[in-house]
């Protein structure tokens, strides 16, 4: 586009210009255009091209960490990725946290990020894989707010394959009021990240004692919450226990 605009008007004046000057101008314009093109490429090459060219193998983790050194670089990468994959988005969710880790234990690093679509809710989990220069993204949304992403990437079976604990609301969001939430366990199934709760019953079994003790404490009045919210808190723990028992009985 730049070349068309730059050279077009010159061509209309070609007849009144000395042929040698015309040649020089053409060469200069061509040089200028190539320069602009090169600078443009460098600018737009930016982080997504760099990420595409970089190896995402675990042995290259250090270099990848250098590329994604801070929230600004990861945010810019996701923004460019969205432009390619989801050009219809009207606004960009903001980055909350990110981790670089080999989720699937296949020797390749994944970028795991939490995003906020509004008011710092941080309730979108995005996993990005680099498959030979082609980026694939997987979005997981359970409704609950994610804090401390690192603690939600766990190896529950201690087999090297990591799972993601995604908080899911068991009742509609009620603002500040307590609502029941459980973690869904998402794992890689070869094609995507799927909910795999029933394969992690030991994890859910391990949650029960704490929940039961919290429920008991609330029923006995040993709680620091507003007394007006005690019934809600009681209901919260009851529903969470019920949801876990459902998983255990499947």
């Amino acid at each position: 586009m730049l070349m068309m605009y730059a050279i077009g008007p010159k061509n209309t004046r070609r007849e009144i210009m000395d042929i040698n000057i015309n040649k020089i101008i053409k060469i200069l314009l061509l040089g200028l255009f190539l320069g602009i093109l090169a600078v443009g490429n460098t600018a737009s090459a930016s982080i997504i091209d760099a990420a595409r060219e970089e190896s995402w193998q675990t042995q290259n983790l250090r270099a990848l960490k250098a590329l994604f050194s801070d929230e600004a670089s990861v945010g810019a990468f996701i923004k460019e990725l969205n432009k390619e994959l989801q050009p219809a988005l009207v606004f960009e969710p903001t980055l909350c946290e990110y981790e670089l880790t080999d989720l699937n234990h296949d020797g390749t690093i994944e970028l795991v990020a939490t995003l906020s679509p509004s008011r710092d809710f941080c309730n979108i989990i995005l996993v990005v894989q680099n498959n030979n220069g082609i980026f694939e993204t997987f979005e997981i949304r359970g409704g609950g707010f994610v804090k401390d992403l690192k603690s939600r990437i766990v190896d529950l079976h201690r087999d090297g394959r990591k799972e993601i604990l995604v908080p899911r609301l068991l009742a509609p969001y009620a603002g500040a009021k307590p609502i029941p939430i459980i973690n869904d366990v998402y794992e890689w199934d070869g094609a995507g990240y799927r909910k795999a709760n029933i394969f992690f019953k030991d994890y859910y079994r391990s949650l029960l004692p704490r929940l039961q003790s919290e429920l008991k404490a609330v029923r006995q009045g040993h709680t620091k919450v507003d007394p007006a919210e005690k019934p809600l808190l009681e209901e919260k723990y009851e529903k969470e226990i019920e949801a876990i028992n459902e998983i255990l009985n499947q």
Partner: protein
Amino acid sequence: MSIDDLSFQLSSLLIIKQPKVNDAYPLIQESYIKTADITFQADDPAYTGQVNWATTVYYETSGNRGPFTVTDAFTSQANTPTTRTFKSQGGRLSVGASEPGRKNADPIQYAYIIGTAIPNSDITSRLYSLYNGVTPNLLCGIADRESSYMQFSNITLFGYTGRWPYESYDGGSHIGLMQVPITMAYSWDWQVNTQTGANIFAEKVQLAKSFERQLRKTYPRLPRLTDSQIENMALVLYGPEADPDPYMQYYIPQGSGNNWQWVENTANNPEGVPYANDVRDRAQKY
């Protein structure tokens, strides 16, 4: 006993008389954002010079969001009271006092700056004043849904039971009337909290208009959204089911040929649409 020993004993006699441990100072002035005058007095029978005061107000939520600290330093004369107020801040207050070049008084650990019950009528007038859209009580509906119209709730924090900022269910990522992302001011100054919520909602209204423009470009036969419909779109964007995808909003285009209309998008956003409807229902109360 030597002179040095005597001097040490005298220098250690500075005692903070006020405030006292476990004193609580609610935000009751200037529309519930400032404490009344708090008296600071340190006594030393053997000294009438300057006393240096240092205060720290420390706040973090039950889920350890924060911490936020505000420090202050001021002076007074020994054995003479002076007063200070605290505005748009609250939490656990620690107080230190010292005589220049001499030993410090035992600090006060801790007194508390806490919230107070803000009358609903004050909140309602404030929220009306912050929004001039087609539904004047819409922000009231948001505050009702988000916080049950409370900036503070009665909980125990730092071992003290009183009115603390109303935390979101996850231990305080969001706070107060409009449940905005936590800061010291948003936690303790309900006027700043509501202003921030109103600003966020105003941004969502603009975003809703962008969605409308984009979808009408794709479907030129779509009618314009009414102001009230724009508000519905903005409400979904204020809530936790906000989404940048144009087909995940409150309304979605439906139709064929020349006949296109906006329909409620419960299919794609089954949580977001009820959130907006609920806010509208709650707004009717105010």
